[in-house]
Structure formats: structure tokens, C-alpha cells
């Protein structure tokens, strides 16, 4: 491969080829990021649906409690939440590794944002559809699982995608609790090579491309879930 180097005057060099030997290491970090985000996505959706169900429930106590959770975790910086868990959990005798702590913290924060999105998806469901389900004798859990969840999911897939993209960007903060995910690995490479500008510039573009790919995937998923509303091909 021809070295791609850009000479900016005599002293300024920008040469990304110096990163080549570190690509496998960075890929390992990227894999960790993917794992953490994948798990946190599942966690966020689970919490999101649960909390959205509580917030739309008829019990004022439950819906109030759910609101307080969402309000708190949306208005406190993620890094503060992360430190709360990372330094706090061992204090009460819970010893888990940085990865698990990170996934839990991401899930809880992501859950707060997802639940808001899912809640508006639930509130947008035509009440007549729920009445039809109710009079046909379906139990409340079945109605929630078979009717409410899928309809809310498909109407809110785009905003949920934005939440997920934010989750990916936020996962970089896990590097502050000793986790060598993508950003954490890049930090190590930056200090090993003494070429922080190249490392972080590439990292920035990598994240932006990653989130762009995710947004493409979300659009495809949105089209797939709402395929019945597209004109039929005869």
C-alpha cells in the first residue's frame, strides 16, 4: 500500500499509515464497544418497555415512580451516573467488572430515553384497537406483548434509532472506568505512537461512519416493519 501522507509545511505531518500496526488492537476495542452497545441496547429496550408500561399504567404511584426515574436519569450527566455505579457498587458489596458496570449504566440511562420514545408510541395507538383486543378476551399481558409492544415498536423505530446512536457515542465514556473499548484502546495507541492527532481524527471518522451505518440499518428496519403501508407490488 502506498503511504498516504500529507505534508503540511515542513513541521506538520499527517500520516495515518502509522496506525496500520495497531489496527488489530483497535478492532478488539471496537468489538468490545459493539458488545457493550449490543447488550445495552437489549437492556435499554427491556427497561424502556417496562418503564413505558408503568408510565402508561392506571396506577398513579407506579406512573409517578417511572416518571421520577426517567426525569433523574435524563437530567444527570452520564459520567456522573457511571461513577456513581462504578465507585458506589463495591461500597455496598457488589463487585462486578468494569464491562458489566458499563453495560448496566448504559442500559439504565438508555432505558430512560427509550421509555420516553416508547411511551409516546404507546399513547399513539388507536384505543379502538386495544378495545378490540380486550373484548376478544385477551389478557392484559398478552395484549401488551402481542399488540401494544409491536405497534409501539414499529412506530417508534426511528426515534429509538437515535437513542441507540446516542448510546454508541456515549459508550466512549466507558473508557473513563478503565474499560478499553474503542476510545480506550485509541488512547493507548495515541500514547504509544505519540501521534494523537492521527489517532483521534481517524477515531472520530470511524465513530461517525459507524453511526451512519447504524442509521442506514435503522431506516431499513423501519421500512421492513412498516412494509404493509408501502404500495404493494402486484
Amino acid at each position, binding site marked *: 500500500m502506498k503511504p498516504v501522507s500529507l505534508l503540511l509545511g515542513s513541521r506538520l505531518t499527517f500520516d495515518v499509515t502509522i496506525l496500520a500496526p495497531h489496527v488489530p488492537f483497535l478492532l478488539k476495542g471496537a468489538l468490545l464497544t459493539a458488545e457493550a452497545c449490543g447488550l445495552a441496547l437489549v437492556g435499554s429496550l427491556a427497561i424502556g418497555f417496562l418503564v413505558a408500561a408503568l408510565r402508561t399504567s392506571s396506577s398513579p404511584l407506579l406512573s409517578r415512580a417511572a416518571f421520577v426515574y426517567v426525569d433523574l436519569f435524563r437530567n444527570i450527566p452520564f459520567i456522573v451516573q457511571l461513577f456513581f455505579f462504578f465507585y458506589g457498587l463495591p461500597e455496598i458489596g457488589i463487585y462486578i467488572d468494569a464491562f458489566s458496570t458499563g453495560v448496566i449504566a448504559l442500559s439504565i440511562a438508555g432505558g430512560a430515553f427509550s421509555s420516553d420514545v416508547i411511551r409516546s408510541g404507546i399513547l399513539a395507538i388507536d384505543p379502538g384497537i386495544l378495545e378490540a383486543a380486550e373484548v376478544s378476551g385477551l389478557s392484559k399481558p398478552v395484549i401488551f406483548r402481542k399488540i401494544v409492544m409491536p405497534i409501539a415498536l414499529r412506530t417508534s423505530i426511528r426515534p429509538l434509532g437515535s437513542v441507540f446512536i446516542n448510546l454508541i457515542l456515549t459508550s466512549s465514556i466507558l473508557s473513563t472506568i478503565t474499560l478499553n473499548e474503542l*476510545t480506550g484502546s485509541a488512547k493507548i495507541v495515541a500514547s504509544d505512537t505519540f501521534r494523537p492527532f492521527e489517532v483521534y481524527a481517524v477515531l*472520530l471518522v470511524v465513530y461517525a461512519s459507524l453511526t451512519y451505518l447504524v442509521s442506514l440499518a435503522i431506516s431499513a428496519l423501519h421500512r421492513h416493519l412498516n412494509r404493509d403501508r408501502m404500495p404493494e407490488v402486484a
Partner: protein
Amino acid sequence: MRYTSFTSYDVVLLAQGLGVSLALFLTTTVIGLLLGTIWAVIRFYRVPVLSPLIAVLAELLKNSPVLVQLFLVFFGLPALLKINVTPVEAALITLSGNTAAFIYVIAVSAIESIGRDQIESARVFGLSRWQVLRHIIAPQAMAFAIGPLTGLLVNQLQVTSLISVIGVVDLTKIGNILNLRTLKPFIVWTIVGALYYATAKLVAFGGATLEKRLRAHSAWKGL
């Protein structure tokens, strides 16, 4: 450091940290507002070269972690340009740029919400482009943007916490210091969290009040 329990001086520390966070938040908000609006105006005038360049820059800033942007400015820029960048300078540059990218998006959609036809009809009446911008677009765009703007600022306030990672002694950094010294993470991070929460609520309240006032103003003008 030997661990010691809380002292009354810690209140002063927390207040100082909060002050640093707020000062950086306010400064970068003002710079971000100016910069983002200028970018949007450049787009409105469809300035060649600059306009697409800004679009790409805004996409990059919106879709990459602020932490990486901070590292790029704080560690990367000095290495590339052989200059000295202090943590506070890096924080100012990064947060302003990041805020500007989001302001740009809000401003562009606010301008688009007004519609080209309205703008063109104003031009027909002989108003200059600047007059159209100043008297037709700006007031309407402002009313449209205030809601999303409030949401953005609540978010950007939280983003400021990341500057603690490059050593700015903001509220989160004070939290780190107290956490190490007292070894009482739950208390420390709960207090720090509560301070951020209260500030976020204040920003949201301010935004809502301003929105109400702007709405009332435009309703009155409509008569």
C-alpha cells in the same frame, strides 16, 4: 491521599466546581449560538465550497463522541501544530464547536420551516436579503427554534461534565476529588448529580419561560 471525611470547605469546592461548569456552559453556548447561526446563514445563502464543508463538519461533530473531539483538540492539536493547548482552551473549543453543530441543525430547520415562498414574496416587495433575514426570518425562526434549543442546552449542560476527563476542575472533577478523598461514592455522586439535576431544571424552566413569552409576543403581533 489519606482519606478524610467531609469538611465544610467541601461546600466551597462544590460551588467552585459548579461555577466552572456553568461559566464554560454559558460561554460555549453563546459562542456555539453565534457560530451555528453563522453556519446556517452561510447555508441559507448557499455559499459555494463553505456551505458543503460546513454540512460535513456538522455531521462529523454531531455523530462522533464529544470525548473523542475533546481528545483530538487537547492531545491532537498540540501534537499536530506544536502549540500549547490548556484544558480550559480545549474545553472552550470543543464544546463551542459541538454546540454550534447542533445549533446549525436547529437553525437550518427553523429557517426551512418558514418556507421559501414567504421569503421570495418578501423579496418581491423589494426587501434586501439582509432585511428579509432580519425582519422576516429571524423572528419566526426564533419562535420555532426555542423548544428544540432548550432541549439541546439541557443536553449540552450535561456534556460539559466530560471536560473533567482532560483535567478541567469542573463539578465532576470536584466529585472525583471528593470521591477519592472521602471514599463515600454514593454521597459524593448523589450530591454532584443533584447539583447537575437542579441546574438542568433551571435551564429547562428558563427555556419554557422564554418560549411562553415569545409565543405571547408573536400572538400579539398577529392581531
